[in-house]
């Protein structure tokens, strides 16, 4: 076997196993950096937003738990409110091609317009790189990062793990709570919860 073939095989093995070797994001630790292309065609790098709070929202437009927060307008209200407070809001789509929730850039742009959703950007992550980097399990899983680049919240959007729209008004929103407490200089009380919802539809997803 040629040396170059052997070398390229080795590189392939390293690339394949790389996502498993990188430690996933953890509350209290530095948020892993990533670069991604948004549905608007622009490139965003997390590192560039040091000094600002950043919210990551895992999204899948076919998931009934996501539907609960978009049909009710809850997610759009949160996006509008917090981006209005200089928070950077990234909606992240980690569905693999052919899986539920996968969208092209133009499909996502149409969706954002139709739903009147105004995140800072909708990041397309069809290979699941950012998803695995943050060990995202569900949509809508939510992560909050502080201006120092530390993960201060990771988990569910709120404390009502259901698909019922009626539950939103009764729920405690963990994302808003974390941002309010952190901005007031307080300790974030609830820093990690089970992120409820649909499983993120990575390429190997079967359930």
């Amino acid at each position: 076997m040629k040396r170059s073939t052997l070398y390229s095989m080795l590189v392939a093995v390293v690339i394949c196993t790389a996502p498993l070797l990188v430690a996933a994001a953890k509350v209290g630790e530095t948020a892993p950096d990533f670069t991604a292309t948004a549905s608007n065609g622009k490139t965003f790098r997390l590192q560039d937003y040091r000094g600002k709070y950043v919210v990551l929202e895992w999204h899948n437009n076919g998931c009934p738990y996501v539907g609960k927060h978009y049909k009710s307008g809850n997610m759009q209200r949160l996006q509008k409110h917090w981006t209005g407070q200089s928070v950077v809001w990234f909606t992240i789509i980690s569905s693999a091609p052919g899986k539920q929730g996968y969208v092209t850039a133009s499909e996502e742009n149409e969706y954002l317009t139709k739903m009147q959703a105004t995140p800072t950007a909708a990041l397309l992550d069809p290979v699941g790189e950012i998803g695995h980097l943050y060990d995202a399990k569900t949509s809508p899983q939510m992560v909050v990062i502080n201006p120092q680049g530390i993960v201060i919240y990771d988990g569910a959007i709120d404390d009502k793990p259901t698909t019922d729209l009626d539950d939103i008004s009764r729920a405690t929103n963990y994302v808003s709570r974390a941002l309010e407490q952190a901005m007031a200089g307080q300790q974030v009380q609830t820093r990690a919860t089970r992120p409820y919802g649909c499983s993120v539809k990575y390429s190997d997803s079967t359930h």
Partner: protein
Amino acid sequence: MSGRESSRRFSAALGFLVALVMCAGGAQASGSPIPHGTLELISDNQWIAIGHPFYLGLHFQLEKGWHIYWVNPGDSGEPPRVTWQLPPGLSPGAIEWPAPRRFGTSSVVDFGYQNDVTLIVPVHAESSVAAQPLAHLGAEIKVLVCREMCIPGKTQLSLTLPIKLQPPAPDVRTRELFAAARKDLPRPAPQNWKISVDDATDSFVLAANLGAQIMQASFFPLAEAQIDNAAPQILQPHPSGFQLTLRKSDRLLKPIERLKGVLVLSGNHSYLIDMPVSKRGAQKNNSSSGIDEMQSSREGPQK
């Protein structure tokens, strides 16, 4: 309207009608329709015998490949939720959950049931039910049914049972379903087992001395976000038992006092485990747990 268009409309209407009839026929077969399956409310006895407890069952039949969830659904999904509508004098207990199975991939793992499963619920019948000859039992069920995608369903179930002073008599039509459901309920761990759970920084180590070698064991945690559901559970058999290493969840930020869950050994024998977590050393099995604690971990928010 052109003739061609009207005939197209007619055939569309016909198709709709045929589909409707087929749909109604399918639903009639057993129970009420839920997404990709049916659900039926059943009783283990032919009538309600005053003063005698009995069991109701939620019998799910799911299409191939679709599943519902355990009391702890794992990384995604949610368990079925019941709102009972029972006459005064009848009080339902909590669902007795059979041991679940794993569904998942390398990164996201859920716990639940597929094909055919019956969730059983004990019901206490007080003497005050005697006021009526018939009891109309109702239950509103919210259930999430998933395969590659998830579909929430909601259905209203009903069952009418006579009320009698006579002692209860089992209903032969449901006997097998209740027998199957009871067979799959986890049992309390035997008294002679020695089980300990150690906190080992990144993992919990469940060590069990059962007096026999065990080649297959998996643990299903009752509480969410304690162990990493997707991480492989590392089994080390030894002549009189085994050791099972369970990776902690990254979302577990505080030490836990007890580890509760269901241990499934080869042959689908399942046991309730409820052990204090120690920093070091073995402890004797004082698993008193019982099913009550298992249920109380979730019943509250379900109401």
